[in-house]
């Protein structure tokens, strides 16, 4: 039975409207990967021909996976661990695994945001000088010569990281609607406007047409390569923020009558629409860089940190209105990154709130401050870049894939809950799932994700990652990836706060939610 004790049952918050939820979900999905990963993956995957596996992956993998997260969060009305606990007794640990992955990602994501923030300011004066590569690694990061953790702090990075953590904690302390929702309502339109301006400027640069030509010219032979199809699924998978608790958490903050599949399709196509925009902007700029340096596009194309902090500063150095281009590019990274960081942190805060029953502000500080301290201690050092790279490769690329695969197998195979989730989605949604979704989530996608997982593991075992020292890979790579599910099982053994409804009966879940709404223990609006 739901508790009626006002002191231990905090009111469940929510987004004030469907529009705010959609913007927050877009804010989570649109992140750094849209800007710095998609253009490279598409180019390497056959240029214009990549559109075919990409669209198929969007429709048959990305959107169904998004619906799975939505269905769990929306039906069971809780953070990832609570929703999965209500789904089935043995599934709670999967939610904690997702929470732990979010903790790891958040601590290094804040460092990248700090770099992007600093580079936004540097853009005004092109402060990285004539050699952006040397500036980034030697002058700015002061990267240690030997990869591994160090305790040599770089004060400039420390200060910027503190600033971003204060912003993130401040936003989250304000609550779901007043903090997360309002930030998304302001940041997402600002991001779209800034990026459209960047694309327009990039398209006016000499060589832009050559860049677009390289980006869109189809290499049909690439479609015969299974690696290209897997890379399309991987791009969609990592870009949509599915499989690690964010969409479960956000879906639990939405009104019970919200059209979830209709909203999800808007989120998914917005995410892909932004990726296409990023591809156009980035390749137009790379076309300019290739022309001004007398190189071929294939020689200047880059992704990730190399694209953002080395190639783009070089473009900005040469381009007319380079300072404006830089502010728009790095400002876009900051806007996209902040909303994503907030969504990652909310997974942790929501889980802690549900588990121990504390107020939002207390949970935000209890979770946010230790994470900020750990983040700054680890990533504002001269060894931070190596830790970041290792954690990103093993916990992000490998860990999310692993938890999503196991979650699908547990939900469909062990608990056999897909029919229930499908009925729920069909009841609340405009786009009906009617069997096709169950077939994809229960059969096809687990097989594909297992293949991707085995492939990813094989690559990482066969080739020592980046030739980093074994101890770095073993502790922060494999060690961390293996430790998270074990810690998650331990966390799932901790009892829930008194009065928590753990039943998966929707009537009991709703009765508990309505009882909480009536209590008005702490702040936050209900959708």
């Amino acid at each position, binding site marked *: 039975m739901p508790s009626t004790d006002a002191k231990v049952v905090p009111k469940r918050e929510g987004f004030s409207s*469907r529009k705010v939820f959609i913007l927050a979900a877009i804010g989570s999905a649109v992140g750094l990967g849209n800007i710095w990963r998609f253009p490279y993956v598409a180019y390497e995957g056959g*240029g*214009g*021909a990549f*559109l075919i596996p990409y*669209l198929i992956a969007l429709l048959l993998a990305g959107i169904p996976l998004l619906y799975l997260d939505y269905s769990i969060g929306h039906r069971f009305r809780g953070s990832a661990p609570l929703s999965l606990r209500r789904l089935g007794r043995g599934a709670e640990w999967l939610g904690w695994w997702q929470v732990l992955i979010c903790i790891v990602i958040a601590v290094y994501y804040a460092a990248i945001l700090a770099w992007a923030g600093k580079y936004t300011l540097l853009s005004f004066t092109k402060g990285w000088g004539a050699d952006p590569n040397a500036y980034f690694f030697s002058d700015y990061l002061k990267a240690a010569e030997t990869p591994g953790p160090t305790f040599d702090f770089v004060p400039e990075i420390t200060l910027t990281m503190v600033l971003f953590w204060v912003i993130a904690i401040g936003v989250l302390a304000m609550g779901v609607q007043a903090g997360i929702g309002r930030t998304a309502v302001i940041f997402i339109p600002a991001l779209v406007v800034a990026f459209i301006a960047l694309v327009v400027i990039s398209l006016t640069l000499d060589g832009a*047409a050559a860049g*677009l*030509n390289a*980006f*869109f*010219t*189809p290499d049909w032979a690439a479609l015969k390569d299974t690696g290209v199809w897997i890379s399309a699924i991987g791009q969609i998978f990592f870009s949509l923020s599915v499989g690690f608790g964010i969409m479960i958490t956000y879906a639990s903050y939405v009104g*019970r*009558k*919200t*059209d979830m599949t*209709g*909203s999800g*399709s*808007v989120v*998914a*196509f*917005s995410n*892909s*629409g932004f990726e*296409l925009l990023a591809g*156009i902007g980035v390749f137009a700029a790379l076309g300019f860089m290739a022309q001004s340096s007398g190189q071929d596009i294939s020689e200047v194309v880059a992704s990730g940190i190399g694209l953002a902090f080395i190639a783009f500063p070089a473009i900005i150095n040469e381009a007319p209105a380079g300072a404006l281009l830089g502010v728009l590019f790095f400002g876009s990274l900051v806007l996209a990154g902040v909303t994503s960081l907030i969504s990652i942190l909310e997974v942790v805060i929501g889980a802690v709130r549900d588990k121990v029953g504390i107020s939002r502000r207390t949970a935000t500080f209890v979770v946010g401050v230790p994470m900020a301290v750990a983040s700054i201690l680890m990533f504002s050092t001269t060894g931070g870049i190596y830790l970041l790279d290792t954690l990103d490769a093993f916990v992000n690329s490998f860990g999310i894939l692993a938890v999503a695969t196991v979650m699908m197998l547990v939900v469909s195979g062990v608990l056999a809950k897909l029919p229930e989730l499908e009925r729920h989605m069909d*009841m*609340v*949604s*405009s*786009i009906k799932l009617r069997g096709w979704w169950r077939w994809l989530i229960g059969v096809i996608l687990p097989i594909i994700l297992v293949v991707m997982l085995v492939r990813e593991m094989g690559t990482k075992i066969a080739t020592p990652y980046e030739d980093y020292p074994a101890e770095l890979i073993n502790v922060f790579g494999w060690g961390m990836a293996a430790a998270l599910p074990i810690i998650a099982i331990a966390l799932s053994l901790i009892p829930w706060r008194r009065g928590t409804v753990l039943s998966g009966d929707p009537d009991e879940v709703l009765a508990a939610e309505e009882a909480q709404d009536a209590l008005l223990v702490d702040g936050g609006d209900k959708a």
Partner: protein
Amino acid sequence: MTTTAIIMMIVAMLTIWGGLIAAILNLNTRGNASAEDIARAELQRDL
């Protein structure tokens, strides 16, 4: 730009941005109807 690249660019824009417009239109026209379905289902259950 080559003709093939231009065609692929247009196809990409039409499918992805067109898909977004279609998704928004669907949500605006049919999204509210699904809420009414739930209300009706809940009323029937309560009765």
